């Protein structure tokens, strides 16, 4: 009744091609932004920031990055953990080498460096596809983790091989380290997520995104109609690497503060982000958010319900978590192979017809 195109007249091309053509969607988008920027920073506490919101925001960026590569360009990657590590270590080296430079610049540079590394490991994609490419990126994952463990220059020769984020600020507000206020860390990540999402959304619905999708759907046909596969594939790797690098930098500098490469950026991280993308929905920006929320929030919710509310032993709850999350993943993949984003799309279709379903 209220969710429909009818009556919402567009009088310019700009209006016609905007991101959210339906008024209700548009309003909802601005409300979400207003709440995220205007309300949550005033209500947030340490627990909400560090346990729930920061991981959600950061994994969302990573999921958007991987979604561009896997969902839009069709290049399967299992190297996400390794690429996040590149972002984290790049950010660490930049932070310690240039302490007076703003964190904004460090994070963006870390993303850029990761983009370059990602392009390097994306080169084999020109010759190999599918499972074989997955194996090639898996090699990247193991190589990068090994590299950061092996070469002491990356961790500034510290005895433990860990990297620790020193205290850095943005416009005088402390943003990393233990004294950073939770609203500041939250806003910092939120700004990056918002920018990344806007850029990703606009890239994917323009020429670039269309050439990625053409490559994904059938690369030979795409080549015949004039899409340059070298360019399309490598730009996908570059853009995806940039986003994943930004998320890795934030993951280390803002969220954890101290990182050990094998533990934080191991193969499990690659799978986690891939699951987010698959559960959320391949080829959908909203799906990246939904997948990240699902896999970040569900364990916390289960833990709160099991341990704090029901008072069960912690090990039973931890085992149940694995069982429930696993079962839900299987359930979703059977019932809705296109992920949470498809559920949302179906809901929107229903809303358009409601209350007259026929």
């Amino acid at each position: 009744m209220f969710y429909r195109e009818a009556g919402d007249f567009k009088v310019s091309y700009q209006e016609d091609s905007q991101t959210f053509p339906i008024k209700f969607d548009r309003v909802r988008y601005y409300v979400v932004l207003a709440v995220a920027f205007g309300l949550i920073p005033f209500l947030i506490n340490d627990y909400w920031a560090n346990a729930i919101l920061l991981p959600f925001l950061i994994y969302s960026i990573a999921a958007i990055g991987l979604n561009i590569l896997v969902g839009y360009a069709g290049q399967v990657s299992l190297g996400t953990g390794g690429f996040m590590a590149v972002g984290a270590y790049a950010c660490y080296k930049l932070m310690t080498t240039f302490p007076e430079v703003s964190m904004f610049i460090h994070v963006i540079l870390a993303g850029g460096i990761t983009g370059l590394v990602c392009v390097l490991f994306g080169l084999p994609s020109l010759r190999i596809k599918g499972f074989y490419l997955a194996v090639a990126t898996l090699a990247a994952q193991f190589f990068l983790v090994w590299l950061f463990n092996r070469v002491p220059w990356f961790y500034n020769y510290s005895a433990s091989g860990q990297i620790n984020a020193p205290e850095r600020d943005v416009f005088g507000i402390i943003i990393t380290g233990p004294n950073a206020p939770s609203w500041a860390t939250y806003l910092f990540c939120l700004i990056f997520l918002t920018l990344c999402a806007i850029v990703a959304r606009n890239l994917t619905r323009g020429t670039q995104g269309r050439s990625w999708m053409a490559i994904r759907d059938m690369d030979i046909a795409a080549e015949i109609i004039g899409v340059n596969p070298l360019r399309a594939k490598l730009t996908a790797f570059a853009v995806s690497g940039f986003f994943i690098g930004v998320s890795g930098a934030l993951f280390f500098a803002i969220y954890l503060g101290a990182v050990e490469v094998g533990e934080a950026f191991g193969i499990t991280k690659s799978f986690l982000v891939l699951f987010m993308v698959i559960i959320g929905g391949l080829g959908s920006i909203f799906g990246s958010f939904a997948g990240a929320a699902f896999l970040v929030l569900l364990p916390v919710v289960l833990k709160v319900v099991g341990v704090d509310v029901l008072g069960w032993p912690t090990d039973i709850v931890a085992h149940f978590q694995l069982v429930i999350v696993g079962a839900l993943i299987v359930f979703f993949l059977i019932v809705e192979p296109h992920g949470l984003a498809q559920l949302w799309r179906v809901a929107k279709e229903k809303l358009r017809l409601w209350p007259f379903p026929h």
Partner: protein
Amino acid sequence: MKMKLTTLALGAMMAAGPVMADLVFPSLSYRTGPYAAGGIPFADGYADYFTLLNERDGGIGGEMTKLVECETGYNTEKGVECYESTKGQGALVYQPLSTGITYQLIPKVTADNIPMHTMGYGRTSAANGEVFSNVFNYPANYWNGASGVVNYLLESNGGDLKGKTIALVFHNSAYGKEPIRTLEELATKHGFNLTTLPVDHPGQEQKSQWLQIRRERPDFVVMWGWGVMNQVAIQEAANIRFPMENFIGVWWSGAEHDVLSAGAKADGYKAVTFHNVGRDFPVFDDIQKYVVDTGKAAGAGDQIGNVLYNRGMYAAMLAAEAAKTAQGIHGTADITPAMMRDGMEALVIDEAKMAALGMPNFGPAFNVSCENHGGPGLVGVTQWDAESKTWSLISDFAETDGEVIGSLIDADSSAYASENGIEPGCK
């Protein structure tokens, strides 16, 4: 039905909600994952000792204790979640039992002014209390452990290790890398060769490392392992017929579950320790009587007397004694985390105190001070007897190389202080 469920949930929430007057001790445990074999007995020992205090003595200084358990799975992200969710409940002291989580929490606990006790793990240079005001690692740390191993080898080889080779098999993480620096120093000092063999998490795959050991035939193998890695390493050592008496683990690689799976072949395997082993202590009778027999034990009650159970109980005892000290200093039973920190810094453990607690000779006598958060660093050696399935102490608790360790601690802690803008000094 819906109404019923809500009331049920509400009731459960009220029952489980924190009672603010209690002394809250969070237990960041791990009973799942590849490190659970070590995490379970430690968590059981930690929990059972506080239950014993509640049941037998009515808490600490008349104030009941409350243990809040949170499952970390040895994972730093979950560790952060656990820290944030428990710190609001008035947590007095954190003991994460993970070096990775410790590194994460050092800046956080300092900012929140909550003490953290990393007994025999964590960041070794935290022994310098002038830099690490809220972190304690008494009574011994990794570098004491490394030096203790070398001292034992020196002693059993007539004081000379020149030209010998020691291979270090270590968990490739912050934990496993911690002793390398000390062992390198000691290698130059005593003239032995050191080879390092990293094993990646979780440590089930060690064929190549042991192949290298078989090829290079080092005189001794030292292990810095944890979780499933220990069992695998001991099995592999047995497979290549490496003499077990030349194989020494750190205290995290020397529990019953590590050696049992290798059966009779593990006989003679050694490990260093900083506390006593076995269940011949009066305190265990009390635990049996007040905790296990009344059905209040944290686990199945079958872990009592195991190395890691003893260690968990020892950690709880040190925390409880520090709480008592803090109550004495501040004249109140209901202490805050900041008071707890003062109590830990003024902690005195002597023979009479330990005997009164039912743990005569269980650990070393020591005093904590602002300058020294690390305790005396006395290290003993235990050996496994596969026949009787027991660990037994084969050497006294001996001094370690304070000269080498002290200068390394100074160097590492001053580097940390300058990195983080900390002015070293006592408050």
